[in-house]
């Protein structure tokens, strides 16, 4: 495995030298150092580190301002505060500035190593999930549609990095909770929902409510099965689904999400079924 690349920001050359030795002993690669805001910006832009260790007291600036500057360059860089000060107020401010961890000076080598590795692991976990979830949600939709209606969807070649925006009529929202949290939206037209329900029940639907309930349950099963399959791939995901909420109407829109989502569009005998899925990294639990 590649070594985790680190930049050290500290105003004291003595501290930098101690931290550098300590990190290198723990098998990290120290690729740069900085003692001011300007130097921090320069070295982060040039060296592209995975992690920055950050002192809180830096002349002319502070650790939090430097953290914000780093995240403006690349918000995926993990900033870990290594400071002699640690109290509730500072920790709260650090969290507000999206700091990934906090270690008090003098830094314990083992503690610092664990904090760095944990910050990186969360990121790798999300990447792993993002690499596989589309295929497994597709597989789950295929299996379950086949099970209830003896037909399988044909998927559009490309998975769209986009949103549904305008609902086809029925949108079932399912929240997903776990080490990475997310959501799935199943979107289809009234006509499609009605046809699937009639095929599954082998009779005409009595009311729109019957079709809505059926589609809600179907979405729940698709999401639940997909998450089980994902958990089997890596049990650290620990994904669980919340109950479905069914939105429907002629003029209904799904907002662009704060996270990157993928849309899977399946053509079926009953019409289009669209799944829009997205995950984000779990909240840091470093307190």
């Amino acid at each position, binding site marked *: 495995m590649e070594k985790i690349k680190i930049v050290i920001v500290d105003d004291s050359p003595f501290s930098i030298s101690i931290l550098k030795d300590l990190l290198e002993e723990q098998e990290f690669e120290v690729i740069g150092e900085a003692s001011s805001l300007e130097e921090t910006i320069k070295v982060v832009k040039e060296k592209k580190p995975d992690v920055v260790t950050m002192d809180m007291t830096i002349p002319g600036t502070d650790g939090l301002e430097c953290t914000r500057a780093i995240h403006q360059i690349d918000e995926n860089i993990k900033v870990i505060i290594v400071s002699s000060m640690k109290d509730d107020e500072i920790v709260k401010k650090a969290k507000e500035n999206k700091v990934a961890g906090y270690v008090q000076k003098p830094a314990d080598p083992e503690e610092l190593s664990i904090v760095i590795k944990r910050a990186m692991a969360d990121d790798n976990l999300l990447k792993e999930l993002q690499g596989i979830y589309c295929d497994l949600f597709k597989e789950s939709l295929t299996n379950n549609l086949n099970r209830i209606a003896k037909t399988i969807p044909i998927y559009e070649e490309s998975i769209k990095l986009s949103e549904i925006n305008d609902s086809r009529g029925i949108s079932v929202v399912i*929240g997903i*909770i776990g080490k990475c949290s997310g959501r799935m939206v199943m979107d289809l037209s009234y006509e499609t929902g009605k046809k699937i329900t009639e095929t599954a029940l082998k009779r005409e639907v009595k009311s729109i409510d019957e079709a809505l*309930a059926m589609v809600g349950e179907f979405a729940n099963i698709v999401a639940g099965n997909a998450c089980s399959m994902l958990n089997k791939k890596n049990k650290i995901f620990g994904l669980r689904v*919340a109950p479905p909420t069914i939105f429907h109407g002629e003029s209904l*829109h799904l907002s662009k999400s704060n996270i990157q989502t993928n849309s899977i569009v399946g053509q079926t005998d009953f019409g289009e079924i669209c799944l829009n899925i997205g995950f984000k990294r779990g909240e840091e639990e470093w307190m």
Partner: protein
Amino acid sequence: MDVRWINPFIEAFLNVMPQIGFQEIKKNNISVKSSSLTSSGVMMNLGVVGDLKGNVIYNIDLEDAKKIASKMMMGAPVLELDDMAQSAISELSNMLTANASINFSNMNISTNISIPTLMYGKDFEVKVNVDQFICVQMLVDQIPIDINIAVHE
């Protein structure tokens, strides 16, 4: 359905709303609703699992959502509920529910929440998985925000 589930949300409003510049936060009314809601406006849905299971759905009128987004964006005018504004409102629902989740944990009720999904439109209906649930209407600087607490134990 339990009245103890109301306070964690009210406390969340009292905590979070002043941080984004709202001054007067109060509870307007509390009602019990049945499994479906109709709305014209904006709804944010967050899934909940843990000791409580279900969904928390916030409902705001479209014009009011723009006002809140504007406040969150340092007073920048919000004429349309564009991507930025939707993002701000989504983030608000996330902050409120995460805060409520912490309040629940102080009552030894452990909950985890999903990311928010924001839906908006005209005359749409929402069906939740519980027969009856509590709706708390908060007023933040006179703007009504409904919190539909559609969870069960």
